[in-house]
């Protein structure tokens, strides 16, 4: 459903030097699977996700959503894609219902399907109490749920979510991740980037760890953490070749 093969993305920096943001990344997310994309800031997670979201063109390599190459068939790829960026980008003056309706219309949903879909999302995303309140007056958790609803309004099979829990508190984060688990059980393929290992380690089926634009490890939590008392966190630090932080003894 989501495929990345030998993806390379280079940028030209302001000083003329070439930045290798992504340097040969390959990964796959199958239907009904949730994969965590892990890496430090600047590792290439967001660039990889933006290529999948058709916001960036790959320098070389292939990225596909539901079989549609993002370079040659971007419209097809977008049809099957739900994307959430690290910035919620929810307009302050509009209500969640208005935003969901607008994005549904942009996707070409007919009035009957659209209303049905909006009401369903308002319900499952627990937005009923604030569905007609301007987004500027919502909490960050509610705004994040609106952002997710906007990505889901056309019922895409592939979800690319760039740090969707970054602005949320513990409760909000747990609720959102539980909702993603529900979506996974319905057959959605979910690629999720996060810095919060402890929240995702029991929910994701597999993890891909990238560092300096390259995949340095991938596998299930059990496989990555095998023989490591510090679990996935220790495996992450080992993969990116940095020592795990020392435990603070009071």
């Amino acid at each position, binding site marked *: 459903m989501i495929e990345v093969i030998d993806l390379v993305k280079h940028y030209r920096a302001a000083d003329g030097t070439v930045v290798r943001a992504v340097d040969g990344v390959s990964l796959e997310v199958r239907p009904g699977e949730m994969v965590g994309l892990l890496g430090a800031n600047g590792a290439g997670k967001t660039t990889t996700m933006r290529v999948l979201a058709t916001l*960036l063109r790959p320098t070389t390599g292939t990225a596909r959503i539901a079989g549609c190459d993002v370079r040659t068939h971007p419209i097809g790829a977008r049809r099957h894609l739900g994307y959430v*960026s690290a910035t919620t980008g929810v307009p302050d*003056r509009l209500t969640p219902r208005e935003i969901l309706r607008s994005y549904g219309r942009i996707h070409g949903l007919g009035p009957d399907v659209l209303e049905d879909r909006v009401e369903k999302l308002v319900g499952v995303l627990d937005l009923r109490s604030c569905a007609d309140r301007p987004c500027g007056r919502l909490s960050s958790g509610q705004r994040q749920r609106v952002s997710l609803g906007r990505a889901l309004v056309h019922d895409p099979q592939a979800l690319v979510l760039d740090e969707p829990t970054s602005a949320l508190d513990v409760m909000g984060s747990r609720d959102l991740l539980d909702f993603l688990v529900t979506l996974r059980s319905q057959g959605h393929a979910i690629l999720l980037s996060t810095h919060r290992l402890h929240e995702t380690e029991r929910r994701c089926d597999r993890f891909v760890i990238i560092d300096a634009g390259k995949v340095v490890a991938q596998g299930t939590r059990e496989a990555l953490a095998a023989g490591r008392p510090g679990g996935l966190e220790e495996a992450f630090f080992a993969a990116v070749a940095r020592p795990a932080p020392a435990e603070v003894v009071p």
Partner: protein
Amino acid sequence: MTMLAETMAVAGFQLRRMLTPQRVVIGLLGAVFPAAVLLAARRIGGQLDRNFAVLLVHALIPEAICMLGLLVTMCPAVADELERGTWAYVATRPRGRRALLLGTYVAAVAWTCGVALIAVVLALAAAGVSGGGGLAAMFGGLVLLSAVGRGALFALPAVVVPKRALVASVGVAIVVEYLAGFLPAIVNQVTVSLRLRSLLVSWMDWRRQLPVEFSMILDPNPAWVQIGAVIVLAGVLLAAAVLILERRQFPPADES
């Protein structure tokens, strides 16, 4: 049909976003300002000459109010999309990029025309000249053409330099519309101001009364050619803007 529906969806979305109290106040001020100028002129000079009043309304509304209306709608809407990170959400829809640009354009043109048409009615009432109905229809046409042509003109800086769109659009307005538009050279053929001026002269039947020197900053072709030229110019500019936007990449740094 789908493309039209998607464009109108974005236009509705942008119009709702544009309806901020500040923008409504700016719109009302824009609608009242030309009438206030005409009332002041009447107070100073008594009953206004009809031709002078028409010239003043033209300078104030299709030229100034339309230009300002588009500057405060088309450019900030696009820049705001980028800075708040909402652009990425539209750009990841199947035909989202072109729907975003065309929808924002439709919303900006609709908003500007709304303000300018109210301004025309108020200004003509304030001018107290004869044949107000005919003049209102003529200015309605000029307002629509001004908004259609210049909205497309401002679409280009909005996609090329979204973070400096307003400044770039002011530059474009001054250089293209007010400098090149008044040059007695071939370059003025691609400006909206030449077309509007030529239409005004043609519809007011002023051509024979004007000194011969004015013919250099007017186009002698009939009205349908002027209207067609504005529509073609708008189409070409919008197509170029869509093409640039379709090819534009959105690196992570653009969102911060």
